């Protein structure tokens, strides 16, 4: 027992209760990762296949949403052109916190084979990326693995952290 008076609700006391909340919140978050449909090129086809019946993303709680306001994770699947870069940034900014980004495929990771003037050489130049998924294109199984890894990462985070937006700069 604390000798001094603790304002449990205000000072972030009650460590045991808080870890439980962490667990509960993160359990909820990690199992309802709603993804923003972001198919930019051929990787998008694999992303769609992951969402369809054979690979069935729904059983992970990953449901594709067409609006950034409803999405938690942005799966950047494909080649990001320089013309499109500002829109991906805008959509990322429109997503509500907490949010995560999976960069899917070589193109999104590094620009891939498009070593040209018109391709952004890695989406991490524009938005902060949590998980890089290699492959050209990664099979749906790999994307599932990536989502599981992201779930694992979310579970290890603090649920109630100061809501500091992730920024590149």
């Amino acid at each position, binding site marked *: 027992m604390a000798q001094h008076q603790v304002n449990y609700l205000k000072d972030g006391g009650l460590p045991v209760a808080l870890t439980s909340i962490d*667990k509960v919140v993160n*359990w909820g978050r*990690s*199992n309802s990762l709603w993804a923003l449909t972001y198919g930019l090129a051929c990787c998008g086809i694999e992303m769609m296949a992951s969402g369809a019946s054979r690979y069935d993303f729904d059983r992970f709680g990953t449901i594709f949403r067409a609006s950034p306001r409803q999405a938690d994770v942005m799966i950047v699947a494909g080649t990001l052109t*320089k*013309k499109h*870069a*500002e829109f991906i*940034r805008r959509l990322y900014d429109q997503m509500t916190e907490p949010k995560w980004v999976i960069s899917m495929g*070589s193109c999104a990771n*590094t*620009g*891939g*084979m498009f*070593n*040209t*003037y*018109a391709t*952004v*050489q*890695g989406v991490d*130049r*524009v938005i902060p990326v949590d998980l890089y998924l290699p492959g050209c294109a990664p099979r749906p199984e790999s994307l599932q*693995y990536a989502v*599981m*890894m992201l*779930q*694992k990462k979310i*579970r*290890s985070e603090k649920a109630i952290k100061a809501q500091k937006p992730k920024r*590149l*700069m």
Partner: protein
Amino acid sequence: MRSYTPKDDVQKKSYYTDRYWVAPQVPKSDVSEDAVFAADHAELRAHFEILEAYIQRDQMVVYIHPKDNYAVLEFLRDHCGYTQLSELSAIDWIAQRGGFEVFYQMLSMTKRKRIRVKCFIGENEAINSVEKLFRSADWSEREMYDMFGIKVNNHPFLKRILMPDDWEGFPLRKTYPLQGDEFAAWYEVDRIFGKEARDIIGPEIRDAARVDRYDTERFARLGYEVPKGTPFDPNQPKTSLAYQEEGGVFLIEGFDEEKSTIISDRKR
């Protein structure tokens, strides 16, 4: 097919030795060899000045003066039956001849023939739009402007079509570097964060194939993942695929590689 050469040292030297290979010219034949083309050519010559004409790969190629382009295409459409403009673009000859060759690929469905109308314009010269004759020319001419910087007179909406509106330079010119000039290299950074962010974000990394196996922080092999910052160990054992922490997750069944069956027979 190109013969196989080991590409292990792909980062060190260029392995495409046939990069500047010049293809042999396809033989040209005289216009008179094809009756249909000969008739078209005679009709055209009666109305316009034809600089050169020949048949190549069963298509007639006609060189005209650039000022005639609208009239020639109109004539071909209305009098010779070439009712489709299937393609329109330009070829950069600035280094060799100081200008562009603009070509119009025409198709006649009734005659089942194709004609290519070509004209040569100087680097800073403009060409007349044929958008009033063929709607397909609208976007093609915009693309020609976008990629080569060729101005098109009387075009209803001459604006870049592929590249962003504020792009600098014309990417299909031979002088444009494949990996972009400085403007292209910083385009997305300047546009989104502003020029002052260049130092923070840093230049583009163009070597996409670079994998540093000793850098375990940024490169991980599937099945051999290590915690962040662990030194590289060549004898590292394969970690079994696990996506859950020790102890599992509430209500979620964990995947156990040992207990699972790996199907090797696809037809099972």
